[in-house]
């Protein structure tokens, strides 16, 4: 299709334009960026013919030629206040239009490890991230992640040093001002948890403007043996935004990673989570919550690769769909022949609140080992009329009863969030969405 090919050219042009900036970068990164660009150019945007994109058309993104977002000054703390957690002490890195903004950030240098922007780290000590940055994701079959590797302007690096446990979570905030229409950012996050370390990262993606923009994010989490990582990914883009993301997790022996993915915003959202359990006795938990309305389309895809014995993975994704929204879930558990004693669980539950909402779910198991415990489940339904009737018979109005039951549907996912301020924030966000005048 010539029209789409032209749009590919805009990314090639952007890449060419950045050639000068790349000269300052280490050779290994330039090489990985080139490879990323090459992979993207070869594959282009996946179409619905591609099995993994069967229910999500990226054509709305593919047909627009997004330009890299320009630098924006003048964003104040007040502007982004709704997306910050002031109660939570700990470092905060804020990126506006993909660029690190020190004035909005706060870094407590007392911590032993690294909390900084990729760009400044590349200047000071690039060797520390060479083994990880853009090394894994470009190898995968994901052209959008490849594009991110080619084009990311900046991003965050969080390195938790060995044997340390950080109590306070690190907040990473990616803001798009969306001043000019059709701007794109490619934020990048690299989280390295060294041996026996423990820490949490809260990653927020938000938008301030109403013009269409595209966020194409990649997060890489590397958990060394016996590390614990708690990762929150809170997606609160504006409703005209396109959001595509990949979270790629590599786990070493005895490590434990939990990732919470919350999608409330965005017009067209596609989140991929890829987990590779590389050694024995890893544990991985993936929680996902999406609540969408209007014409929002949210697609969550997970892929857990059990390569070694004695690992366990748990996935629970829940969706609340209202209006003309569409929810898609695609999950895959792969158990390699070696991975005996695997315990894997996957569940996707959906609540349809309106006649025009739609759900497509595809939970998959691919199992090549015999001594395993694997199960998956998927449900799609509406609010239980009997439960609603029960509440009404106790004097609770119809609209409140429905809100309460919807809230209850999502509650167990919210309860799994360790940090109270985040839990409270999304509880109230959910409640305000649910209370609709006039009930049904």
């Amino acid at each position, binding site marked *: 299709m010539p029209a789409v090919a032209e749009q590919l050219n805009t990314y090639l042009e952007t890449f060419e334009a950045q050639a000068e900036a790349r000269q300052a970068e280490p050779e290994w990164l330039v090489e990985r960026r080139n490879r990323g660009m090459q992979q993207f150019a070869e594959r282009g945007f996946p179409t619905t013919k591609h*099995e993994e994109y069967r*229910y999500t058309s990226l054509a709305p993104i593919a047909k627009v030629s997004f330009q890299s977002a320009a630098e924006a000054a003048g964003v104040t703390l007040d502007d982004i206040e709704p997306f910050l957690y002031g109660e939570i002490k700990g470092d905060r890195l804020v990126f506006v239009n993909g660029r690190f903004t020190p004035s909005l950030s706060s870094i407590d240098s007392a911590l032993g490890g690294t909390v900084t922007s990729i760009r400044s780290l590349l200047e000071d000590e690039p060797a520390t991230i060479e083994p990880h940055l853009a090394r894994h994701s470009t190898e995968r079959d994901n052209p959008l992640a490849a594009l991110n590797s080619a084009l990311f302007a900046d991003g965050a690096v969080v390195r938790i040093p060995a044997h340390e446990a950080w109590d306070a979570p690190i907040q990473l905030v990616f803001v798009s001002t969306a001043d000019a229409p059709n701007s794109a950012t490619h934020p990048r996050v690299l989280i390295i948890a060294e041996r026996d370390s423990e820490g949490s990262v809260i990653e927020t993606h938000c938008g301030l403007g109403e013009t269409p923009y595209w966020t194409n994010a990649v997060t890489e989490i590397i958990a060394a043996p016996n590390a614990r990582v708690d990762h929150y990914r809170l997606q609160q883009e504006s409703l005209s935004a396109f959001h595509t993301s990949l979270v790629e997790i590599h786990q070493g022996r005895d490590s434990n990673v939990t990732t919470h993915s919350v999608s409330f915003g965005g017009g067209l959202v596609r989140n991929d989570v890829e987990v590779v359990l590389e050694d024995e006795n890893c544990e991985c938990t993936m929680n996902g919550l999406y609540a969408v309305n209007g014409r929002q389309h949210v697609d969550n895809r997970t892929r857990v690769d059990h390569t070694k014995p004695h690992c366990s993975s748990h996935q629970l994704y829940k969706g609340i769909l209202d209006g003309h929204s569409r929810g898609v879930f695609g999950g895959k558990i792969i158990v390699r*022949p070696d991975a*005996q004693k695997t315990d894997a669980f996957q569940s996707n539950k*959906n609540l*349809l*609140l*309106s*006649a025009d*909402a*739609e*759900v*497509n*779910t*595809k*939970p*998959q*198991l*691919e*199992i*090549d*080992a*015999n*001594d*395993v*415990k*694997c*199960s*998956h*489940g*998927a*449900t*799609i*339904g*509406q609010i239980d009329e009997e439960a609603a009737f029960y509440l009404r018979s106790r004097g609770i109005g119809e609209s409140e009863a429905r809100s309460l039951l919807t809230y209850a549907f999502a509650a167990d996912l919210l309860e799994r969030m360790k940090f109270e301020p985040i839990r409270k924030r999304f509880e109230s966000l959910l409640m305000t969405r649910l209370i609709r005048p006039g009930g049904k």
Partner: protein
Amino acid sequence: MSTPTTDLDVLTSQDYKYGFVTDIETETVPPGLNEDIVRWISAKKKEPEFMLDWRLKAYRHWLTMAEPKWPNVHYPPIDYQAASYFSAPKSKTDGPKSLDDVDPELLATYEKLGIPLSERAALAGVAVDAVFDSVSVATTFKGELEKLGIIFCSFSEAVLNHPELIEKYLGTVVPYTDNFFATLNSAVFSDGSFCYIPKGVRSPMELSTYFRINAANTGQFERTLIIADEGSHVSYLEGCTAPMRDENQLHAAVVELVALDNAQIKYSTVQNWYPGDKEGKGGIYNFVTKRGACRGVNSKISWTQVETGSAITWKYPSCILIGDNSVGEFYSVAVTNNRQQADTGTKMIHIGKNTRSTIISKGISAGRSSNTYRGLVKIQKGAQGARNFSQCDSMLMGDECGAHTFPYLEVKNPTAQVEHEATTSKIGEDQLFYCNQRGIPTEDAISMIVNGFCKEVFKELPMEFAVEAQKLLGVSLEGSVG
């Protein structure tokens, strides 16, 4: 697994018991496929004009299609020009009226299979429309069924005697453009079974057909069409075994079911074709399109299948639930061993209001086989109050086999309730230990546990089949069932 694995290895490496070739003269066209062959088949069967046109349309469409690559199965490319597309037992073209007319050697074949036609027909009260290769050679109980107005005959007879029914229903559930193998079947199908149950009639007996692939190098293309008119009820049995052979044989059948208002069709299959030897050499390629349409209100179509044979099984018996309150059911046990591959499941398309569907699928893989469940549950926007429940369990025996589950759920109506559950497990060592401890040998314990695992499906089979199914399961996995 420690000891049970070694036992299983011994038990699961049993040879196919039903392998032999019957020498009957057959009339076979030269290998190859072109328009002339299609015309030849149609002429040979003295088909009316519309059938030839339909076949040719299918053939021309087939030329434009490519073989599907998405199933989770692997096999060497098939040379469609190397196969012969028609073969019929030569001496019997006139069609015998009674069992006495049937070639004794043919009868002996059935005898060897342990299901003597005469005995079975008499004792079990089953009318058997035996398809030996491609032409029906014996039909029993026909007279009795005729009294009720039930038409149960071979497809070619139906084309000659009831062309209006064929013209009205053929290809309405599985159109000739449907998929590569169904289209190929539409072009060259040789024979099959036809069944029409008139309004308000309840078939007094289980209708049964007995497929058997015999002549070497002949792909068998069966076509089955069952029409249950308003308020009627029929239970149809299909069972298969095939002789041992070294060359892969392609079987691309099409089954179409039509249920009108308040009609019920129950379609049961026991499939035990030659699965190939332990290294995966030989064996049948079973690429089948089965689909039923619940056209009328309150209609019901129920598929039950026990798949133990074939080198590759690739089939998705489906229900299109158009009529309000219609019901679709799918019960399946798929057993794969050695190098067998199975990619099977169902599609439930909910279109009418208050339509319900149930899917129970049990996959058992042993040896180095691969067993895939692939299913679709689709709730269309107008399917108010639709309900689906799916359960897909897999059992793995041995550490070189694979079990995969690929369900697709698409829901466009908020009043629908859709549930899917799947588990994968192996036979618990504690279960085996418990049985052993009670004096039950490991072999018996395994068959007990496997039969228990499949019980939900077996109980859906008609009695005659349930026995055979348990037997086949035993043959496929262990050799004997306690």
